[in-house]
């Protein structure tokens, strides 16, 4: 119950004011002690400061978490994708890259197929906000990023900060654009090979006694067996090439991180030189001696003769071999189906 109040303010310098407050009155309760209030205020300020610090830390952690980077040692930029399609030499390249220290190979997780099959296939109509891969690109990418990195951490907890994870993913390349978008800082190898040689290799494996057919016979592969009609195999193989190399190219073109295009034919002609180019272009450190050793170890010449040949996984490794393997009609079919990609990567249409 103040009965008298006076407040005087005067500017004593630019921006500085002097003030005098005078207050007198009567009260029925306690007259608060100014010192105690000030101490409380100071305590509250310290409390606020502490909360502020905690929140800043939590926000930072939340940002990290939402960007899909779980607490772990594998750096997203050290993930190296190997896209393309089957029968382009990815197993060979993967084996060589698995050699140098601090490189770990993830052999065909098919995480690209998991998301690619759905996003471009069955779930393509669920693009709205309710669809699990619908909504904005950012939303979808965050979810995929978190999933991929969590899976990688789960499987390879031993990878240290400067270690690389090479993900050999030719058969998951139909999801390459989704993976690359989710991990824009990751590295990418885009492997291509003349589609006629790819189809030719495919046909060999699926012909009678071929390694693919045997895999079904032995129960290593289940589900619908591959067609036996050569024309159907060729058509299916060419269509798969178009889809998988097409998606790889889409991802490669859009990718902002380190990337390198590798032709199988170049890898065959100059393996060590191409390997050096891969590491150099991707900005990856690799001991030259170790790389040379890996190249030597996995050379075609060092594969036992009994493991090579028609119908076997290691067939002939001869660029341009399609001329001996495919009929003119089959060649025409492959060229028609894969036309745009063939023209881009093999413009002379004669192979190497």
């Amino acid at each position: 119950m103040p009965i008298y109040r006076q407040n005087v303010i005067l500017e004593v310098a630019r921006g500085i004011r002097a003030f005098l407050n005078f207050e007198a009155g009567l009260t029925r309760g306690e007259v608060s002690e100014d010192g105690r209030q000030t101490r409380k205020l100071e305590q509250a300020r310290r409390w606020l400061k502490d909360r502020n610090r905690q929140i800043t830390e939590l926000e930072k952690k939340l940002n990290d978490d939402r960007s899909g980077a779980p607490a772990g040692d594998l750096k997203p930029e050290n993930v190296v994708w190997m896209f393309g399609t089957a029968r382009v030499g990815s197993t060979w390249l993967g084996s060589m890259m698995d050699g140098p220290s601090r490189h770990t190979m993830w052999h065909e997780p098919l995480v690209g197929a998991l998301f690619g099959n759905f996003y471009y296939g069955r779930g393509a109509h669920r693009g709205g906000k309710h669809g699990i891969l619908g909504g904005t690109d950012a939303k979808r990418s965050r979810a995929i990023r978190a999933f991929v990195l969590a899976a990688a951490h789960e499987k390879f907890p031993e990878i240290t900060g400067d270690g690389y994870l090479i993900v050999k993913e030719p058969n998951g390349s139909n999801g390459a654009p989704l993976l690359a978008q989710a991990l824009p800082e990751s590295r990418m190898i885009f492997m291509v090979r003349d589609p006629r040689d790819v189809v030719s290799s495919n046909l060999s494996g699926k012909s009678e006694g071929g390694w693919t057919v045997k895999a079904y016979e032995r129960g290593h592969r289940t589900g619908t067996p591959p067609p036996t009609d050569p024309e159907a195999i060729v058509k299916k193989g060419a269509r798969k090439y178009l889809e998988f190399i097409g998606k790889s190219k889409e991802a490669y073109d859009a990718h902002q991180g380190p990337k390198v295009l590798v032709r199988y034919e170049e890898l065959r002609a100059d393996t060590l030189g191409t390997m050096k180019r891969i590491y150099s272009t991707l900005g990856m450190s690799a001991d030259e001696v170790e790389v040379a050793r890996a190249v030597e170890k996995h050379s075609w010449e060092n594969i036992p003769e009994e493991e090579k040949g028609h119908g076997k996984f290691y067939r002939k490794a001869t660029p341009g071999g399609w001329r001996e393997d495919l009929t003119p009609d089959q060649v025409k079919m492959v060229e028609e189906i894969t036309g745009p990609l063939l023209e881009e990567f093999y413009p002379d249409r004669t192979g190497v």
Partner: protein
Amino acid sequence: MSIYAGCVKAGSYLGRISVLPVLKNRVAFEVARGIKAFLNLEVGLTRGEAPGVGTGTSGTGATAARVRKIGHRLTSRGRALAGSVGATPASSAQSDPQPRDARDRCVRAENLVWIFGSGRSGSTWLRSMMSEMTHHRFWEEPMVGQLFGSFYKHAQEGQLNSANFIMGEPTRKGWTRSIRNFVLDGAMYANPRLGPEDYLVVKEPNGSTGAPLLMEALPESRMILLVRDPRDVAASVLDGARKGSWLYERKDKGRWKENALADTDPEAITRRRAHMYMSQVGRAKQAFEAHEGPKVLVRYEDLRADALGTIKRIYSELGIPAEEKDLAQVVEKHSWENIPEENKGEGKFYRKATPGGWQEDLTPKQAGIIEKITAPLLEEFYPA
């Protein structure tokens, strides 16, 4: 970014407190029993606004109160953030002695209510009623079950046995956890306003192939297995897939137009639908039997015969509190009778809602196809 909306920074507020008093004096003495006289004098310099009379001593108290208020808001915000990142700030450790999964506090796994079964079983109707309830939101066919379920179903045996395969058995524990986080993140992205007290009704009949994986990943979530006589389901699809009908016109990705099977080869579409029923309801049943969280089996026919009684049973068995008057209200609002007549009928999404209507709609051959393919489920849920 919505998740930071409402975040209060103490610094901005503290920066405005710029009073620099050089002299403060206070005198108080009792002039009568319980009555005190006081005199406050405050002299000083300030770079900002000068405090007025009454904001000196009493203002300090007001400032402290405001600081405390901001502090409480910061604490709440801190708890929410801690929940999001799985951290527990010291201040909230006592109130939450058992930290749970990071995302559970934004989207609580136990508050997910899955509706599995098959399409054309009344899931839209049930979802519509449930999502009208207080603290209920819905997630309309995210198809997350199909994403994982279909991929897993089509995996080669060799792949499933491989530790390299993204869904290989040797790393099952890890990818199950990843699915859990993926679903909870997806739920939050699709429903950013979802609060920890909200229930999220996930209508997922067409993702039922993945029901076992989803329930394994989210064992504390709630589950509704919604079944309907497969012959009525097939009759409904056949009707919708005919030229000019709602499914034919709407499903541009479903090749309904391209194949036009309902008109040209109805037996083929009947067979296909029966197999789909087996796959979807079969997997949903498998998940239902294994699920240890709250769950309830609902027959469409029961829902039609006694919607209020059935929905009361659903809420009771799922352990979700609900007022009977609220349930009665949503049942009434979404009753068949309240759907405008022009929206109902042959070829429309709302067709006839008559259990047993297949006897008029299917040929004996079509009924025979379905009965043969779906026999195990038909016998279990609709014994003769």
